[in-house]
Every structure is written in structure tokens, then in C-alpha cells.
């Protein structure tokens, strides 16, 4: 692609901000440059450099917008903060737009509620259009679109894994506990991140136990085609990819004739389904509703269906609110209900809920090891401080990206703190026939 070609494409994409959506245009025209966003940004907290300043990142786009779309910019150029696009900057953009975790903390404190993640995503969309999405990201998207999951796993492997988990639970509790697969007409269609089945499977086992105890083992199902809610189109800024990936899952839910799509412990997957797909009606009227498995389990706990042996989770446990669950979906109390029921020593992290600090791996950054130095020494610094203050030995969180980032963060900074899911803790301590899971020591 020639430079003029690149420039034309970028400028046109930025000009298009004029035509909406409303947020983009308002953000181009409203900032007062007060610097509040920087003071609440996990990245800027980690390292106070100009390139990490959220307002500055948005200004990369804003300057070009001013140049082409505002009267003052056209008249006064640089004096009005307008600047033309320079194709040489693209490489710089590639790193800068992947130095924002899209956690939306800035929007919480900005006097105008400006959500810089919107502009980060716009910047990434421009890169994606130029074919400049970082390779690690692009690969995940490609595999996902090809196979329906970010693993590239097939249905045979998946079914084998499910069988294994059933055996595992049978050994733990001495009775068969089912994980139904491809059952048409089941009420609940469970969509976890695939890692929660194939790599850290305790979350899925936890949910299976919940259904078992309620006597609803035949009322839910997983799909051997669609078992990964992760959708990296959100992270690359490519709406087309995001919708294509999403459509598969909605279609499968329709095919399975489920009444509820039960999303797993995956923040961005739930946000896309609930706040984007369902709320704005991407695919018209839906024959099912979208719910989160933590909501569902927490409600059952509150109804008093379960008993727990908290001594199975004796270590101090804290909960990290994934930004996509806390700030973007308002799921804050349910995981706490589950953890308080399942753990002996639950501790809050401060600040928390909608004001929680990002783990430093949001916006897909967690999957990018080429910037691990940045994630460990800049974006994750605040989280590390927060976690240390709790004195917890286990961080429960409901998001695979957060889990990966936090695991690496603890490893990198020599903290002996484990990381895991919310239903993991439930799985370890919930009583079935008066008995908690029997976890053998093989030493």
C-alpha cells in the first residue's frame, strides 16, 4: 500500500467520525484537557509519560479530525491543535493504541464522561483496516472465525474433554454428574470462554455441580460447535469480525431452542452479548434472553439451595472486578455472593466494583506477549499494589484475560498468590450429598 493510499484511507476513516455515532463526534469536540483521565488511568499510573496520557492518545485522532473537519482547524492549523496525518506515524500508532486496556475508568471520572476506550477502538479499527492489527491478535481472530473458537479445537476434542470433566467430577463426589452437550430444547445454553473447559476447567465443573444439585442436569447444555464466547473483534475494532463471530453463537442458540443463553466467566463475551447484541438488537427479536452464570448461581445461592464447606477454601481470597463485568455490565454483587458463600476469608480490594483498577491486560492486551514488559511494569503496577494491600493468597476473577494477566503479574513480581475463577471456588467447597469434592494429594 502506498503512502498516499494509506493517508487517504486514514483521513477518510477519521472524517467519518463526523457522521456518528454520537460518542465519537462528541469526544472530538468536547474535551477540556483537564488531565483527570490521566490521574485515574492504570497505564498512566504505572508510568507517567505523555504517550500514556489518555487525552493525548485520543488527540492523535482528534488532531487529524480538527484538520479536516473543523473550521478552526482548517483556518488556524497547528495553532488550533490541528495536524495532518503522517503515514510514518502508523508504526507508532500500532503500539500506542495497544497501550490502552479499554477499561473505561477514565469515563467514570471525566467531568464530561468521555470514554477514551471508544477512541482507542477507533484507532485500532483504522489499523485493522490497513491490515496493521498486531499479528498475535489477528491470529486469534482468524482461528476464531475459522473454527468458532479461539482454540481452533474441534468437536471431537471438545466432547472428549467434557467426558474427562465428567469422570473428574465422578471421582470427586463419587456420583455421576453430567455436562450435557448438544441437547436441543434445553433451557440453558452455557457459553464459557473455551479456556474454562480445556485449560482451567474448574469453573465449568462448578456450574455443572450447581445444575446437578438443583436437579436440573437435563435442563442445560453446551454446544460442541460453539463453546467459546471470546470474541476478539471487540479488541481489534473490527465490527464485521465481531458480528460474524457473534452470529454463529446466536444461530446456535436458536438451533438449540434454548430459553436462556448462559454466558460464562468471560467479561467481554458477556458485554458483547448483553450490552451490544441484545440491547441494540443486532439480529432482531431473539427467542432467548442473555444471562450470566454468576447471576444465575448467585440467585440460587440466595434462595438457599446449597451448602458449602468453607474450610476447603481457607486461604484469604479477594475478587478482582473485571472491567467488562464491573464497569460495563454492572455485574458486581453476584460474584461476591458466590465467593462469600464458598470461601472462609473473603476480602475486598479497594477501590472496587465500578471503580476498580484494570488488571492491566484488558482490551485484548493480555494475549499479547510481545508487550509483556509493558503489562508487567506499567499497566499492571496499580493492580499489583492493590492486590498486595489485601493480603490475599488467591485472586478470584471472572475473566480469562484478567486471569492470564494476573497470573503473569504475580509470577513476574514473585508473589505467591494464586489466580482462578469464581465458580472454581464454588466447585471446591460446594457439598453434594453432604460432601465436598474429594481432592486427592498424590505426593
Amino acid at each position: 500500500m502506498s503512502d498516499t493510499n494509506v493517508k487517504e484511507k486514514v483521513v477518510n476513516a477519521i472524517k467519518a467520525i463526523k457522521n456518528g455515532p454520537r460518542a465519537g463526534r462528541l469526544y472530538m469536540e468536547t474535551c477540556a484537557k483537564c488531565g483527570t483521565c490521566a490521574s485515574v488511568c492504570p497505564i498512566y499510573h504505572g508510568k507517567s509519560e505523555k504517550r500514556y496520557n489518555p487525552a493525548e492518545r485520543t488527540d492523535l485522532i482528534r488532531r487529524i479530525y480538527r484538520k479536516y473537519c473543523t473550521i478552526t482547524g482548517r483556518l488556524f492549523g497547528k495553532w488550533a491543535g490541528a495536524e495532518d496525518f503522517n503515514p510514518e506515524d502508523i508504526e507508532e500508532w500500532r503500539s500506542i493504541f495497544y497501550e490502552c486496556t479499554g477499561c473505561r475508568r477514565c469515563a467514570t471520572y471525566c467531568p464530561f464522561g468521555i470514554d477514551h476506550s471508544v477512541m482507542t477502538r477507533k484507532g485500532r479499527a483504522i489499523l485493522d483496516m490497513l491490515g496493521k492489527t498486531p499479528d498475535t491478535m489477528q491470529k486469534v481472530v482468524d482461528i476464531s472465525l475459522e473454527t468458532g473458537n479461539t482454540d481452533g479445537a474441534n468437536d471431537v476434542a471438545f466432547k472428549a474433554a467434557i467426558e474427562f470433566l465428567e469422570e473428574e467430577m465422578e471421582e470427586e463426589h463419587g456420583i455421576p454428574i453430567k455436562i450435557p452437550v448438544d441437547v436441543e430444547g434445553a433451557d440453558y445454553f452455557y457459553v464459557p470462554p473455551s479456556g474454562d473447559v480445556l485449560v482451567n476447567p474448574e469453573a465449568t465443573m462448578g456450574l455443572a455441580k450447581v445444575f446437578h444439585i438443583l436437579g436440573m442436569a437435563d435442563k442445560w447444555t453446551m454446544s460442541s460447535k460453539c463453546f467459546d464466547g471470546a470474541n476478539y473483534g471487540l479488541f481489534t475494532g473490527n465490527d464485521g469480525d465481531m458480528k460474524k463471530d457473534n452470529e454463529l453463537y446466536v444461530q446456535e442458540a436458536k438451533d438449540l431452542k434454548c430459553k436462556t443463553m448462559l454466558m460464562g466467566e468471560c467479561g467481554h463475551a458477556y458485554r458483547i452479548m448483553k450490552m451490544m447484541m441484545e440491547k441494540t438488537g443486532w439480529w432482531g427479536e431473539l427467542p432467548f434472553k442473555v444471562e450470566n452464570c454468576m447471576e444465575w448461581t448467585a440467585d440460587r445461592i440466595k434462595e438457599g439451595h446449597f451448602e458449602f464447606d468453607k474450610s476447603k477454601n481457607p486461604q484469604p481470597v479477594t475478587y478482582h472486578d473485571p472491567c467488562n463485568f464491573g464497569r460495563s455490565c454492572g455485574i458486581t454483587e453476584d460474584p461476591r455472593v458466590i465467593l462469600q458463600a464458598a470461601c472462609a476469608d473473603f476480602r475486598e480490594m479497594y477501590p472496587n466494583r465500578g471503580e476498580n483498577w484494570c488488571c492491566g491486560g484488558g482490551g485484548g492486551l493480555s494475549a499479547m506477549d510481545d508487550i509483556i514488559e509493558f503489562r508487567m511494569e506499567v499497566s499492571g503496577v496499580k493492580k499489583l499494589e492493590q492486590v498486595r494491600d489485601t493480603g490475599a493468597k488467591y485472586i478470584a476473577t471472572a475473566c480469562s484475560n484478567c486471569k492470564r494477566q494476573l497470573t503473569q503479574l504475580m509470577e513476574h513480581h514473585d508473589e505467591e498468590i494464586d489466580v482462578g475463577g469464581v465458580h472454581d471456588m464454588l466447585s471446591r467447597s460446594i457439598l453434594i450429598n453432604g460432601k465436598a469434592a474429594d481432592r486427592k494429594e498424590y505426593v
Partner: protein
Amino acid sequence: MSSDKTKTITSGEGKTYVLDKYGFLANPELWDEEFARSMARLQGIYDGMTQDHWNFIYYIRNKYQEEKTLPLLVVACLDNHWRLDKLRSLFPTGYFRGACRIAGLSYAFLCDVNIWHTYETVPNLKSEYKITPQGFLADYETWNERYAHLIGDEWGLSEGLTDKHWQVIHFLRNYYQAMHNIPNVHEVCEAHNLELDDLKELFPGGYRRGACRISGLPFFA
């Protein structure tokens, strides 16, 4: 992880292997059992590799060599008829960070096969010993020879701990037990007929951070 300089690991037989920046064998083709044994110690397998360990490692090696792939954790357990707990107790740092590391797969290969491998959460190596912020054993009584070996491994002593080491270590421990004090460095040298430089060579950390630390003495007497 933070430094850019090449990481290496040296086996008991003095063979050196180059690691990638995540502490995985840089070139999986250079793997041998010697590497596995050295790496296993770093992954919390202190008492040597058992047959179970080797079977699992060769299972991973085969998958790598013949199919250029790596099964996901759950699938690997399934294939070996292992329970997750068994995997966790045999490989304390987990499947991906533990077993795959010992099997000599490179980090790049792991990411390339499937990014989800790297999402595994278990693997914090719990040390068996309580260590003070200065890096000294918190409780003198919890010292044992294995602890000394671990510190020795940390220093990468080419011949491991020799009789000379043990003499000094036992002297220090006996002295401390009796006097509740740390002897003067010259007393130690005199008692063992050593020059200061010899002592430095035996215990690379120096007297306090080397000899006293490996003997489990506290930082302050």
C-alpha cells in the same frame, strides 16, 4: 523475565542450555533427559523425576515431534488417564509452565500452537521454606540439607555442594546452636584452614549472604 540478557541453565553435569525470555528451552531440538532433570528441580520437583513424570514428559515430546502439536491440558490428562490433582501434584507449576517447560518446548511454539495454553492459572511455586525479605530462612529450625541444596542450585555451583561446603555449614550451625551468635568470618576461616578468597569461592554470596544464608542462620543474630 525483565532482563534482556540470555538466560541459561546449567545441569549437574555441566552442560549449558539456552532459555528463551520466558524461561523455556529456546530450541526444543536440543532437549535431553539431563535438561529435564535440571529443569524439574526449578519447577519444584525436588526429589527427582519418577516414572510417572517421565511417561508424561515423553508423551508431550512425542506429540511435539510427531504431530508438531500440543494437547490442551484437559486432553493431556484424558490421554494419560490422570486426574487434574495428579497433574498438579506431580508438576507443582502446572502443565504449561511446569511439564511443558521440562519437556523442553519453547514458549514460541506453545503460543503458536494455541494461545489458550498460556491461560493456565495454577502455577505458583510455593516454597517450602519461609524466607525473610532479606532472603534468609525465617526459622533456623526449619533448615535441612535439601534447603542447602536449593541455595546451592541457585548459585549454579559446578560440582554442587562438596565436603568442604558441608564442613563449613555444619560448623556454622553448631556454633549458632551453642552460642546463639554468628561467628566472626576469621574464626571460620581459621577453623577450616581457609583464606578469605577460598571462602568466597566456595560460597559465591560472600560470608553473610553466602555461607551463613545457606546454613540457615538469620540475618541478625
